């Protein structure tokens, strides 16, 4: 028993030691981790105050877990080391010689020995074992050095805590405070002072540069001020008491923003405090001062900083209508007026198509100005709008705010509804193609069909019946197509009627043959009838196939020609642009050239697509693919583009001339091809057209000849007039030369920059006429000089009217326009005087013309009368022409009547014995007739006439050009604007007037 007790005691001692050691290790680890956490978590909370809550939660959860874990470890150790067997195993592990004996002893002592086990032996075993354990020292079995590692960890943690406390006590404090959810003392513990701590405050405000506003000083202010974000505010004041430190603190507790230290400069009457801040938000601020004794005081009442916001720009979009129905090739006139408190930098047209938003920058003459307005022709053909689509659009304007980012204002949203008569017409042509394919398929089926094959004939009969229905559908759709030729409708109606008849006859025959066959009687006669009917149908189908093919070809060719007309318009515009680019080198013009090139290329591609037509045959010859590929050369227009991009304006313009010639040739070839086709396949119509065109061309030719005859008389008259004038010419010449120079000088003084493009163009003509006038004066040809002077005067009138309208509408081309207007008005007056002088200097025709010339004039008057009567008769004939394409006869008649009026004018001038006036009028009448022939040719291409005009005329904003504010109102406003408003309100007044003018 003794031995057992000794062993138990030994094991208990070792167990206790082990348990204590475990408690110590767990405690050290726990303390170390908690200490490290106690430093790191507050530091993190100080760095990320916003995460303090989460960090606090994490810290709490972590600490709890660590403590619970530690307690669990202690209890587990307690349980383990209180079990002798565990301790025996531990000792056995260290003392190998005792390993099994000690464990056996513990087990035997616990009564686990077999009943038959020898007690003596057991006692002896315990005795020996007790003796052996007595020599063992529990301290050696469980040494304390196992605690070194936890001790080191705890030490490191302690060092960390100490370092943090020493190095960043503030951060630690803030972090702990943040974790604890506590708040600092308001104003850092400074005492609130009911009265002021500083004297008057002077504030200097420097608004952000983009506003263009000057610096403002608010003297003797209470400290409150209003400023825009981005304003730099410099604050100056004097401390009422002695101070060693001062700062600006923000918010109700001084913590809304970092304090701004103030500089202190001792001055007589008190220390001057000075500081600077960048305004970014509405806030209150206070002065916090510290006396030499360390007492800190802060104002009880704060000073308010109010924010003056940069407002988003406002934009008004003017369109032809809220909801506009347009074809997809139209140009739509848009106008916008945008205003901003500081400056407009970008204007964009924004539209949505197929869920996608598209943007197009609109012209902005002077970015950065407070108001901007412009007109823009939106070319819808550039954006490929599918027919039937609805396109919402608006304008977005951005301002120049570079502090908070540009503010964007947007206009009302308008909608375009895209409809395209041309697209509809093209769709109908596509349906005609489908119909054609059915007709030819039927022909292809009938041609090889054996007469006895009844089943095949039934199928063909069904196809014929279906064809009748299809023809009816297309014919009905044709009725709704305004661009379709009604003649085609007639053709289709006849076709439908014919095949309907065939279909019914064939069905009856087939039924009867079938019945005969079923009845076993002879159907030979009926079958012969069927063969004959089949032949008839084939013949009809052959004709119908070709008729339809011809109509489709014709419409394709007409379409190509109309595209050629559009090409011509673009080509002419492009040539003008290239000339302008050559003169100015302007990038805007280059961009416009690029747009025109794109439009031309698109049209050419469209023309080529139409030109492919339908398949007419199979090409049996082998075609070398390489040779075809080599033809895909760089197009002429691409070369123009490349030259323009290279900046070689001269070469680009020259190349364009070549391209234009090629395009003209191609259009001419198309025109001839269409005329040939009409002649070959649509002969009656062509005959009537050719007759009409021939008559018109004849009339134009005769009028031209008449003008030539008048020219001759005029030349004689001019010669005689010059001779008569020669004596007094020197005197007149000197005077006239002076007048001419004066006009030229005035024109030269008109600043070019102030001229609108139209006025510039007009002035070019005026200058050319003045040059001619100079030459005529030098030649002594006063009659012609008078005509030139009249033209120059008319040109100046046009330019003046243009500039006056431009100035009057309140949005002049630029600020030099009024001066240009004044100079041109003066030049106009001088020109009028010059014309008058020339008129006076020119003898009257009566005085100059001899009896022979007068008789000639009378004869020419009668000739002109006869020509006019011819034109009138031709107009009547054209009006009643039955075989011409739709409406064409009436249009020609209308134009001929117009030409007749011009001829009447010629008659009038001839009767007045005014060969100069008659000559111009006669040439004009001849030109009108010639142009009419060309126009009629264009119209004759088909029923799509008018498309070019339709395309060319943009959809304008109604009334935009016509509206003028009443003169009195405009004068009142101008007068009022001259009056000075009170300082500080001028800007507002200016804006008010701007609005009023608008």
């Amino acid at each position, binding site marked *: 028993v003794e031995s057992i007790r000794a062993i138990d005691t030994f094991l208990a001692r070792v167990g206790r030691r082990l348990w204590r050691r475990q408690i110590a290790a767990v405690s050290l680890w726990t303390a170390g981790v908690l200490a490290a956490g106690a430093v790191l978590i507050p530091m993190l909370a100080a760095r990320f105050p916003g995460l303090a809550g989460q960090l606090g939660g994490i810290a709490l959860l972590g600490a709890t877990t660590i403590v619970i874990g530690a307690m669990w470890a202690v209890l587990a150790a307690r349980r383990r080391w209180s079990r002798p067997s565990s301790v025996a195993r531990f000792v056995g592990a260290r003392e190998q010689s005792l390993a099994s004996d000690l464990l056996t002893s513990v087990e035997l002592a616990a009564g686990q020995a077999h009943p038959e086990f020898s007690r003596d032996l057991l006692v002896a075993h315990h005795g020996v074992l007790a003796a052996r354990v007595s020599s063992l020292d529990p301290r050696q079995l469980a040494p304390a050095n196992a605690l070194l590692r936890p001790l080191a960890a705890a030490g490191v943690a302690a060092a960390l805590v100490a370092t943090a406390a020493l190095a960043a006590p503030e951060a630690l404090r803030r972090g702990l405070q943040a974790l604890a959810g506590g708040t600092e003392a308001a104003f850092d513990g400074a005492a609130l002072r009911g009265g002021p701590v500083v004297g008057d405050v002077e504030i200097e405000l420097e608004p952000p540069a983009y506003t263009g506003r000057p610096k403002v000083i608010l003297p003797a202010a209470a400290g409150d001020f209003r400023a825009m974000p981005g304003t730099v505010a410099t604050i100056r004041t004097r401390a009422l008491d002695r101070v060693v430190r001062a700062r600006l603190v923000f918010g109700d507790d001084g913590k809304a923003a970092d304090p701004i230290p103030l500089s202190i400069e001792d001055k007589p009457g008190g220390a001057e405090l000075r500081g600077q801040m960048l305004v970014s938000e509405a806030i209150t601020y206070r002065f916090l001062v510290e006396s030499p004794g360390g007492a800190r005081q802060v104002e009880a009442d704060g000073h308010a900083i109010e924010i003056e916001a940069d407002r988003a720009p406002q934009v008004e979009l003017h369109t032809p209508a809220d909801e506009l129905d347009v074809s997809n090739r139209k140009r739509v006139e848009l106008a916008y007026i945008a205003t901003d408190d500081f400056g407009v930098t970008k204007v964009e047209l924004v539209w949505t198509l197929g869920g996608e938003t598209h943007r197009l920058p609109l012209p902005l003459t002077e970015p950065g100005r407070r108001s901007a307005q412009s007109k823009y022709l939106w070319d819808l053909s550039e954006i490929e709008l599918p027919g039937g689509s609805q396109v919402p659009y608006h304008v977005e304007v951005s301002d120049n705010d570079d502090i908070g980012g540009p503010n964007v204002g947007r206009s009302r949203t308008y909608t375009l509804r895209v409809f395209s008569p041309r697209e509809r017409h093209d769709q109908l042509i596509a349906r005609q193609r489908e119909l054609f394919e059915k007709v030819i398929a039927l022909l292809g089926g009938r041609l090889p069909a054996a007469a006895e094959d009844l089943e095949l004939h039934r199928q063909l009969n069904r196809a014929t019946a279906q064809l009748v229905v299809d023809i009816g559908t297309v014919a009905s759709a044709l009725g709704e197509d305004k661009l379709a030729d009604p003649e085609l409708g007639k053709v289709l109606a006849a076709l439908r009627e014919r095949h309907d008849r065939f279909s019914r006859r064939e069905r009856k025959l087939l039924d009867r043959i079938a019945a005969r066959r079923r009845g076993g009687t002879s159907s030979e006669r009926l079958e012969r009838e069927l063969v004959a009917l089949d032949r008839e149908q084939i013949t009809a189908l052959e004709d119908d196939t070709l008729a339809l093919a011809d109509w489709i070809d014709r419409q394709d060719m007409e379409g190509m020609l109309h595209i050629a007309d559009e090409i011509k318009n673009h080509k002419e515009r492009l040539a003008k642009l290239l000339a302008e680019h050559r003169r100015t080198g302007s990038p805007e013009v280059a961009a416009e050239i690029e747009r025109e090139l794109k439009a031309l290329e698109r049209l050419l591609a469209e023309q080529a697509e139409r030109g492919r037509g339908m398949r*007419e*045959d199979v090409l049996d*010859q082998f*075609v070398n693919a390489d040779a075809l590929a080599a033809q895909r050369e760089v197009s002429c227009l691409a070369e123009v583009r490349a030259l323009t991009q290279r900046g070689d304006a001269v070469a680009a313009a020259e190349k364009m001339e070549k391209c234009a010639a090629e395009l003209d040739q191609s259009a001419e070839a198309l025109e001839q091809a269409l005329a040939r086709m009409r002649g070959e396949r649509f002969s009656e119509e062509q005959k009537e057209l050719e007759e009409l065109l021939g008559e018109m061309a004849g009339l134009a030719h005769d009028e031209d000849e008449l003008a030539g005859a008048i020219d001759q008389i005029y030349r004689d008259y001019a010669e005689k007039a010059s001779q008569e004038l020669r004596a007094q010419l020197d005197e007149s010449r000197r005077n006239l030369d002076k007048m001419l120079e004066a006009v030229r000088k005035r024109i030269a003084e008109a600043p070019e920059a102030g001229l609108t493009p139209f006025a510039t163009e007009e002035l070019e003509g005026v200058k050319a006429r003045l040059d001619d006038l100079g030459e005529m004066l030098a030649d002594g040809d006063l009659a012609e000089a008078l005509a030139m002077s009249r033209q120059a005067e008319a040109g100046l009138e046009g330019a003046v009217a243009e500039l006056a309208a431009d100035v009057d509408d309140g949005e002049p081309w630029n600020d030099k326009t009024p001066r240009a207007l004044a100079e041109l008005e003066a030049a106009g007056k001088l020109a009028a005087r010059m014309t008058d002088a020339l008129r006076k200097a020119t003898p009257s025709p009566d005085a100059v013309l001899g009896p022979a010339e007068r008789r000639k004039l009378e004869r020419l008057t009668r000739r002109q009368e006869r020509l006019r009567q011819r034109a009138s008769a031709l107009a009547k004939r054209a009006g009643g022409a039955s075989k011409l394409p739709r409406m064409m006869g009436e249009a020609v008649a209308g134009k001929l009547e117009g030409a007749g009026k011009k001829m009447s004018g010629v008659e009038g001038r001839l009767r007045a014995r005014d060969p100069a006036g008659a000559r111009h009028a006669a040439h004009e009448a001849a030109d009108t007739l010639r142009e009419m022939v060309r126009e009629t040719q264009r119209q004759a291409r088909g029923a799509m006439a008018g498309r070019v005009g339709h395309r060319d005329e943009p959809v304008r904003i109604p009334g935009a050009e016509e509206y003028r504010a009443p003169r009195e109102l405009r004068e009142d406003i101008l007068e009022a604007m001259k009056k000075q408003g009170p300082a500080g309100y001028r800007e507002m007044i200016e804006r008010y007037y701007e609005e009023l003018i608008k």
Partner: protein
Amino acid sequence: VRRLALTVAIAVVASVVPAPGPAVAGSRGDTIRAARMLAAWRYDEARELIEKLQTERPKAAETRYLRGELAFISGEYERALELIDGLEDDAVFGNVGSLRKLAASTARATRGFESAVSARGHFVIHYPPGADEVIVGLTAEVLEKAYDAIGDDLAYRPSEKVRVEILSAPSDLAMVSTLTEKEIETTGTIALCKYGKLMIVSPRATVYGYPWMDTLVHEYVHYVVSRKSHDKVPVWLHEGIAKFEQSRWRKGPDAALSATDESLLASALKSGRLISFDEMHPSMAKLPSARAAALAFAEVFTLVGFIHKNAGYAGLQKAIDLQRSGKSARRAVAEVMQTRWSKLEKAWRRHLARSGLKSRAGAESRARARIHFRRSSGAGAADNVGVDAVGSARARKHARLAGLLRARGMSAAAAIEYEKALAADGEDAFVAAKLSRTYLELERYAEAAKLATPLIELDENDASAATTLGLAHLATGEHEAAARAFELALRVSPFDPAVRCGLAEAYGSTGDGRSKREREACGKLR
């Protein structure tokens, strides 16, 4: 022209510069002689003189230019540029500038070319690697045949290897010559013999091909005549001999005109608008149109045929020899014919008048449209080329319908319409060609062959008809006849896989050794 200018220029210099010492005076004479030798295609003699000049006056501008010219003629374009490097363009009376420009553009056009020597070594063919490889063997074969035939006829066989350049595009022809692209396109010029070499544009560069084998031989005849005559023969006679001899590589002497040439000549005779022999100078390619060029070729062809008929090849050889010795072409020809030129011309015109030349509708337009550098544009133009030329309105209507049906895969119906068209105008070649091809589609081979055969007789360069015939014979197992037909097509359209593959099959079946070459070509083109 350039070389002539050089000769004249040098002669002028020789006359105005004061006589120097004997050595320098000798050099100047050699310079003039060398230039003349080059101009007269006497390259070996020119080479000797230039080598001598190189020893005596190596740095003289004239010597360097002549060396450059010789290098250019020898096909060493880069070397030619190196030799004249540093000389001003206006040196040697501007000839340096011309040579530099031409050598540079030729070097550019032929850069990267590969070469092959003909089986018997008489020709070196330079060609761009790639698709044109399939005609290199054919080129060599045709030229070797021509070497023998022309050598016998004109009694001249070049001892040097003749340089041949196959060019990828008409624009390349402009680069390697002094012709402009416009001139090439206007006159349909497709090959040249100049600068001691033959230059030909690959049929691949034309839309429908052209009779390239005869053209190649045509240019070779020019080469032989230039070499033999020391380039003394005027253009009109040159062209006449070349045209008369161009088919000799494949058949005996034949003075028969093609239908198209006959039509052209008949119309010109009727209207009295024959092209004069003077108008043909300096080059047929400078004539105002392809039609004028075709008429001129037809005229000189008949004149040479007339000489051959009366004086044989011996007469032609003598005429060339007489010109080499300094006699004018007119005198030489008149002497051979033992008459005066004026009488000879009248006799030739009488001969033409008695020949019963006929003008056939459509034949002339076919002649004009033979070489297409571009495909026509306009609605449907690419497909129904020729339908508008069908004479009878009724035939035209049915032919158009047939084309429309055939384009939509309704061949049986199309054949019926073509038959109607042919019934309306039994002689129309366009309709017959279309119907024969439609029969081929319908596997009615015998009928297809029957229709295609007379078309080839009418125009031996009708590759489409020849291909139809070849395919029809191939389908019926008549391999020899198929090979003959395909060979005709090959003379125009060597890049058509149907021709090369058909030929490979036909040769293969008849045991012809050329089947390997055709199989390879077929594999490349398919």
